[in-house]
C-alpha cells in the first residue's frame, strides 16, 4: 500500500491570485503529517481540495486511492474533517449535534445513540452532552467538532489548525486526541502554524510557503539539515560581523533574522561561541547579546524562505 494521501502538482487559482502553486504531497498510512506554514501559505486551500470541498485548478490528488475530483463520495466516506472554525449548529444540544451527524455518516439507526455517546465520551463531553452547544467554552466546542470527526471511524483525519485559539489545557486535549487516533491506526493530516505543535506531534512535516512545499521531512531531520547548533548574535553592526565571520570554517550558514540579529548555523556551538566573540572583539564590533540553541523549525523556515514564521504571519 502506497501513500494514503497523494497529491501531484496540485494548484488552485482564485481569479488572478494563485493560492496553491504546484504542490506535491505524500502521506503514509498511520503517520501524523503536518502542514506547517504562515497564514495565507495555502494550507487551508490545500486541505479544502483534499477534502473535496474545492475543485483543483490543476494537478491531481488521491485519498485512500480515490481521486478527489472524480470519486469524491469515496473520499468523503473515508475522511473525518475538522474545520478551522467551529461549525455553528443552531439551537441543538451537544448530543443532538453528534447524533444527527452520526446519521449523516450512515451509522446504522440502532447504533446511532450508542456511537454518539462513545464519541462524546472519547472527548470528555459526555457529562455535558445534554446542554446546548452554544453554552460550551471554546475548547469544548472544538472537542465537539473533534467528536464529530470520529463517528464513522475514518481512515484519515484531516484537522485544520486544531488548536488555534485554545488555552493550554485544551491544546493538550487536542494533542492527546491526535495521538490516540494515530495509535488506533488512523492517518492524520494536520495544518498548523504552531511550531511546537508540528514539532511534538508530527512524524513528518511539510513546510509550506506561498502555495509550495519548501521542504519536507521529520522534524528531527529538518532541524538536523539546518545545522547542529544555532548561535544568535545581537549587535550594533550585524552586516560587518557577518562579513568578518562568513569565511570561517565552522560557519555553515548565516541568515539575518527579522529582528536585526544574526542566526549563525554551526556544527558545534562550543567552537563557534568563543570564535564569534574573539572576531567581534578584533573588529571592534560591540556584541550586545550572544546565545546559542538547537535549531527549531522556525530556523528551518527561516533558512528556506528568508523569513521567520512568526514574522511571515504578521506580514501576510
Amino acid at each position, binding site marked *: 500500500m502506497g501513500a494514503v494521501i497523494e497529491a501531484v502538482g496540485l494548484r488552485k487559482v482564485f481569479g488572478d491570485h494563485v493560492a496553491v502553486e504546484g504542490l506535491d504531497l505524500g502521506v503514509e498510512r498511520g503517520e501524523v503529517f503536518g502542514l506547517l506554514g504562515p497564514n495565507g501559505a495555502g494550507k487551508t486551500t490545500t486541505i479544502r481540495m483534499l477534502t473535496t470541498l474545492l475543485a483543483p485548478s490543476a494537478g491531481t490528488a488521491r485519498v485512500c486511492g480515490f481521486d478527489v475530483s472524480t470519486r469524491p463520495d469515496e473520499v468523503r466516506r473515508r*475522511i473525518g474533517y475538522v474545520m478551522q472554525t467551529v*461549525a455553528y449548529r443552531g439551537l441543538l444540544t451537544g448530543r443532538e449535534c453528534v447524533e444527527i451527524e452520526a446519521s*449523516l455518516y450512515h451509522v446504522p439507526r440502532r447504533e446511532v445513540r450508542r456511537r454518539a455517546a462513545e464519541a462524546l465520551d472519547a472527548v470528555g463531553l459526555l457529562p455535558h452532552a445534554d446542554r446546548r452547544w452554544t453554552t460550551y467554552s471554546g475548547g469544548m466546542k472544538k472537542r465537539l467538532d473533534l467528536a464529530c470527526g470520529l463517528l464513522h471511524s475514518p481512515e484519515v483525519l484531516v484537522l485544520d489548525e486544531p488548536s488555534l485559539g485554545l488555552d493550554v489545557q485544551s491544546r493538550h486535549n487536542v494533542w492527546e486526541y491526535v495521538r490516540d487516533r494515530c495509535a488506533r491506526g488512523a492517518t492524520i493530516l494536520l495544518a498548523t502554524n504552531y511550531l511546537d505543535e508540528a514539532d511534538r506531534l508530527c512524524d513528518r512535516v511539510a513546510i509550506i510557503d506561498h502555495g509550495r512545499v519548501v521542504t519536507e521531512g521529520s522534524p528531527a531531520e529538518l532541524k538536523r539539515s539546518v545545522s547542529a547548533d544555532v548561535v544568535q548574535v545581537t549587535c550594533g553592526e550585524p552586516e560587518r560581523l557577518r562579513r568578518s565571520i562568513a569565511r570561517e570554517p565552522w560557519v555553515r550558514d548565516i541568515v539575518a533574522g527579522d529582528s536585526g540579529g544574526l542566526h549563525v548555523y554551526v556544527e558545534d556551538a562550543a567552537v563557534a561561541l568563543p570564535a564569534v566573540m574573539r572576531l567581534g572583539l578584533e573588529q571592534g564590533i560591540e556584541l550586545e547579546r550572544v546565545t546559542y540553541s538547537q535549531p527549531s523549525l522556525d530556523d528551518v523556515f527561516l533558512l528556506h524562505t528568508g523569513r521567520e514564521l512568526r514574522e511571515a504571519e504578521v506580514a501576510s
Partner: protein
Amino acid sequence: MRTEPAVLRQRAADGRAGAKARGQWAQEVLALARRWWIELLRERLNLVLSVAQPAIWLVFFGAGVERAIDAEVIGTDDYVGFMLAGIVTFTIVGNGVSGAMPLLWDKETGYLDRLMSMPIARSSVIVSRFVFQVAQQSAQILLVVLVALLLGVRIATGPLGLLVILVAAALLTMSVTAAFSALAYAVPQHGTFFAIAGFVSLPLLFMSNAFVPLDAMPGWMAAVARLNPLTYAIEAMRTLVIDGWTSSIVWSLAVLALAAALCLAAGVQQFRKQTGERVQG
C-alpha cells in the same frame, strides 16, 4: 430468452446497492429534518406566529376588503373562499424566503462545508428542507382552512378536495423552496439574498391570480401571470374550493410538478456549484 446467471447476480447486486443508497438517502433527509424540527420547537414564538399568520391574514383581509370587491369580477360572492387560495400561496412564498434562511446561515457560518465534507447526497439538504417546510405548512393550511370554515366557507370538493389542496401546496412549496435555496447558495452574502427576495416576493404575488382573476387583468399581465407557477396552484385550489372537481385541476397539478422539477434541478445545480468553487481561504 435465457438470462445468464452472472448477469442475474449482477442485477441483484445492483438492486441491493440501489436499495442501500435509497436507505442512506432517506436517513440523511430524516437526520437533517430532525435538525430543523428541533430548532423549530425551540423557537416557540416563531412557531406560533408562523402557524397563526395565514389565519389572521384571512380574517383581516377577508373582513376588510370584502365589501370593496365586485362579485362580478371575481366570479363568486364568496370572497373569503376566493381569497383562501391567495392567502395559502402568500404563505408559501413567505415560507420559501424564511425557509431558505437556515441554508444561508449554514453557508455563512461554515456548517455547509462540514455537511459537504460528508458522504451525503447533494440533494438531501434541499429535500430535507422541503420535507420540513411541507409539514410545517400543512399545519398552517389546515388552520387557515378551519378558520375559513368558521367564516362560512364550504369547500366544494369536501375532505378529499382538501387533501388535493395540500398536494398542490406541497408542489408549489417545492418550487418556491428550491428556488429560494438556489438563490441562497448563489448570492455572495445574505444582504443580497434579502434584497432580491424582498424585491421578488410581492410582484410574484401580484403577477398571479392571487387577488384578481386572470380574466379581469389586462392582456399583457394575464400573459405574464400564465408563466407564474403561483397562478396554477391558486387556480387548482380555488377551483377545488369554489367550483368542484374539474379536469383543469389535473392540468394545473401537472404544470406545478414540472415547475417543481425545474426549480429543484436549479437548486441542486447551485448547491453543486458551491461544492466546486468557493473563494474563501
